[in-house]
Each structure stands twice: as C-alpha cells, then as structure tokens.
C-alpha cells in the first residue's frame, strides 16, 4: 500500500493523542540526569552523614565514634562563634540588600528606554561572580594600593591612610558594602516582577480617591508584594548563610579569625586540618539549617501558585 494513503488526517486521528507512551522508554531519557544526581549528589550526601559518625583522617583508617563528633561540636566555641558571626552577617547584609533592592525596584518598575538602561547597569555586578568581585574589593580596600583609603585621604575625610581591613568593624562593613553592590540588582529584579504584577488600576483608583504617594505605597504596594518580598528574604538569608568566597578572599578570616563563617569553618576543619569526620558533622548541622529555610521557601512558592 502506498505510504500516502495510510496517513490519516492529523486532526481526525484519535489514537495518537492517547499515545503518550508508557513503559520504560521514558526513563532512558532521564537516566543520565538521574545518574549524575545519584553519583555526585545522593551518594556524597549519604557519605556526609556516615562520615560524621567517624573519626576520619585524610590518610589512615576511619574509626567509628558514634555521636562523639556532635558532642564535641556542642562544646566547640569556635563553631558557635562561626555560626554567630554568620548570623550577624546575614542580618546586616539582608537588611542592606533588600532595602536597597526595594528602592531600586520602585525606581525601575515602569517600562521606558531610560529605566531599561538603569536596570541593566544595576544588574551588571550580579553576573560577575563572587570570586571576581571579592578580588576586586580586596584591591579597592587595600590601604596602600587601593582606592577607598587613599581617596578618603585625598578629599580630606581622614588624616593619613586608614587601614579598613585591620579593624573588625570596618572590615565587616567593607565586605557588606561589596555584597550589597554585587547582589542588589538580583533582588531588585525579583521585587520588580512582584511590583509589576500589581494591577495598575489599584494605584490609579487610589490616586483618584486622593491617596498620597506614601499612602499608596503603605496600603497598596506593601501588602501586595508581601509574598515576592518573603521569597527574596528567604533566598537572601539562605545565600548569606553560605557565605565563603568574600571572607576567604578579602579577609582570610581575619582580623584575628573574627570573620570565619560557617562554611569557612567547615573548610578549615576538612581541608586545612583534615579532620574530615568533624567537618562532615558540621556540614550536617549547616545542611539542616538550610533545609529548614528551603522548606519555608517552597511553602511560599506553593502558596503563590495556588492563590
């Protein structure tokens, strides 16, 4: 039979619609992805938990020690200091980031040639990577060859050169300013898409009713961007809790080991002191903290999907 004859009209054929093929065929397509996730994620994840129950040196045999790593961690002041510092950094950088991001988002929420340009430029630092931005900041904050201290001296702000990175407070602020510069554009885009989802009629109606700009912001904008804002908040907190690059590259954990974050502490235990088991136990704790944050984030996303 000629081939042409056997072709039914596509629209008239009821069978192909139902032929969303069953069987194991589809699994083949997803197998590479599944294999990567199992080998490079799930197995290491299981190993983290397993290793955390051992005394595990880099060379030599691992020894089962049960929960000893966890009891040791409970009494390890430097771990708690690292967590405390990470929390402090998270709070300060989140306030700075989301505050600036909201202001920027309000500025560029409407379409226009100029606002499109502003948006693009403000977003540029986001794509540069934490390592590059940190290296750049390490130079800018340097007392001799950098920009900040010599500039402050040149315009008469300080007498002589002030070493920003030698003192905890100024070092901390220098890093925080870097992070705000680098990441504000990211949260700006998230908040902006929240702002753009507010129907223009609402603002218009309130304007006609005589509501001032401040009133409109407080009673229309704020309640309606609560969810995108909460999402940005969780992402920002989760990101800051995992901070490492900037403190390693700019400050090397100093001055006086005061800026060692949680990930930095894990890095030190596992790859400087080579106490792999103890590093794994710290990882499990960090993982649990981040999992709780992720679950909250998923809740927020789901609520938005349903409403």
């Amino acid at each position, binding site marked *: 039979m000629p081939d042409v004859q056997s072709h*039914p009209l*596509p629209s008239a*054929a009821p069978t*192909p619609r139902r032929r969303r*093929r*069953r*069987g194991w*065929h*589809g*699994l083949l*397509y*997803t197998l*590479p*992805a*599944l294999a*990567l*996730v199992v*080998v*490079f*994620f799930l197995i*290491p994840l299981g*190993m*983290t938990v397993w*290793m955390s129950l051992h005394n595990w040196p880099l060379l030599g045999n691992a020894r089962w020690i049960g929960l000893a790593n966890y009891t040791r961690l409970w009494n390890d002041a430097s771990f708690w200091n690292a967590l405390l510092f990470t929390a402090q950094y998270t709070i300060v950088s989140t306030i700075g980031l989301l505050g600036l991001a909201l202001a920027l988002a309000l*500025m560029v929420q*409407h*379409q*226009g040639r*100029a*606002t499109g*340009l*502003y948006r693009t*430029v*403000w*977003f*540029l630092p986001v*794509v*540069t*990577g934490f390592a*590059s931005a940190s*290296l*750049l900041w*390490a*130079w*800018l904050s*340097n007392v001799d*060859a*950098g920009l900040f*201290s010599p*500039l402050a001296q040149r315009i008469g702000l300080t007498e002589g050169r002030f070493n920003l990175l030698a003192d905890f407070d100024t070092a901390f602020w220098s890093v925080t300013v870097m992070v705000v510069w680098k990441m504000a554009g990211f949260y700006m*885009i998230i908040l902006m898409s*929240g702002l753009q989802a507010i129907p223009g009629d609402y603002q218009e109606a309130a304007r006609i009713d005589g509501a001032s700009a401040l009133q409109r912001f407080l009673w229309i904008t704020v309640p309606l961007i609560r969810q995108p804002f909460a999402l940005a908040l969780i992402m920002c907190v989760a990101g800051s809790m*995992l901070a490492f690059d900037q403190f*390693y*590259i700019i400050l*090397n954990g100093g001055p006086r080991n005061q800026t060692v974050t949680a990930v930095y502490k*894990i890095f030190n235990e596992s*790859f400087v002191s080579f106490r792999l088991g103890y590093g794994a136990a710290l*990882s499990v704790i960090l993982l649990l903290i*981040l999992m709780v944050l992720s679950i909250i984030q998923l809740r927020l996303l789901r609520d938005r999907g349903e409403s």
Partner: protein
Amino acid sequence: MQTSTRQGGVTAPTARGGRIRGHRVLFHITAVLVTLIFLAPIFWVVMASFRPAAVSLQPPLPPWPSDGVGVTFDNYSRLGDYGASVLHYTANSAFVAVGTALLTIVVSLLAGYGFSRYRFPFRSVVFVLILATIMIPFQSILTPLFLLLAKMGLQNTLTGLVFIYATLQLPFSVFMMKNAFDSVPKEIEEAARIDGMKGVRMLARVMMPLVTPGIVTVGLFAFLNAWNEFLAALVLLTDQSKFTLPVLMTAVRYGRYGSVDWGAVQAGVTIMMIPCLILFLILQRSYIRGLTAGAVK
C-alpha cells in the same frame, strides 16, 4: 510607557505638569548617580589594569594610565609569572565552563523531553528527586565529593569539576527544559510522527529548534556559574597547572615573598569579569527569563 502617557496627558493642568517634570528630573539625577556608583568599581579595575608596572602599587587616582605613558599590558603579561601563562589558566576556566554548559544542555534536554513527553514508572519520584537537590547546599557535601573523585580517579582533574558543576545545574535546568517542552504543542510532534520521526531523531530534528530559548538560558547559567565558581575548584584542584582563574587569582592576591602584585590582580579580575558582562549584555533576555522562571514562577 504607561506612566509617560499618563503624565503627558492633555488633562494635566500646567502647574501639576511642571511639578511632575521636576520629579522626573530629580528621578533621573538620582538614577544616573546610582548608575555611576554601580559602574565605578568595574570601570576602575578595567582602567587600572592597563597602567604600567611602575605605578601598580600606587593608588588608582586617576585610574587610567597617565604621565605620558600609554596603555600597557604589563599587568597581563606578569600573570604569566605564576606557573603557566595566563592563556593556560583562561583555557582551564573556559574548558570547565564550556564543558559544564554542554553537559548540562545535553543531560537536561534529554531529561526535560522524557519528563514532558513520556510516562514511565517512578516518573514523579525521579523528577522530585532531581529537583529536591536544590534544597541541599553543595558546600555540605564537598568533603565526601573530594574522596569520591579520588576513588573514581577524577581528583585534581577539570573533568571531575565539570561533572560536579553540571550536577549542581540540574535541578534548575531540568525544570527549565521540562517547561520548555511542555509549552510546545503536541500537534507538531504528532505531525512529525506521521512523517515517520521517532525517538532521538524527533528530539534533535523537530523539538530542539522549538526549545532553543530554553537551551540558551540553561547553557548561559551553566557557563556563568562554572566560570565563576570558587570553593569547589579551590578544594578539588591541588595541582597549580590545573587551577581555574578564580583559584589562580586568589593565589596571586595572597602574593609571594610578602608582597602582593595588585597590578596582576587587576588584570586577572578584568579577564574574569569581561566574558560574563559581554555574555549577559548579548543574552540579557535569556538571562532574565531564567531568573524569573527559577525564582518567581
């Protein structure tokens, strides 16, 4: 656009129009100032990287090469003093970034197609499993990854890094590609099937052109994240000849013999930043699509 028509509307009384024009001027002044502040660090480091060696330890005031000296590439050539030439390390980074992008595209294309067009046992379990890895920070599995790569003979190799980076991209990329396939009408596939297309050939010939925007987004994010990643590269690469740019530059930043060559740091930062900025400016639409799909949708 909406605002401008509203503000330029014929009904606006002149006094109000004047006030609004004042607002607009104030708005643009603020926005331009913010723009300059955001651009300044990038501008400064790119300019300073072309200064001659003699002034690289002096403050960048002004940042551009001055005192009658033209643009020089001293800082770039001095990067070659750290082991191999700077081209070698750039090639390392490019290999990792391009390799990650390609592997991510192939794997997520196949998986996205499978999840979108087939039903099979454990389909939703596998899908949720891949997506759920995004909840776990990879920093917490770095220690076993180090041992695992050693077992597989991939320690201290760029290939090992590619596998890890691609795996980290999967939750986002598979989600992205499944959505891309979901939005392709079934009728196109039906028509192609009647013409005798099947399986992988159907995917390559018929479906791939239709999900190109998704492929670009997935590849762009994979490339940028792999190019910029620091911690895993720092931990897993021990041989200096294998270093990617961020790891090399951190070694340069800590200096040798107690002194830091800031000129070399400026050159390295410029090499690391420029490709990202160019890619973003060219593919801005794809980037923002990925951002809003991953975060907001």
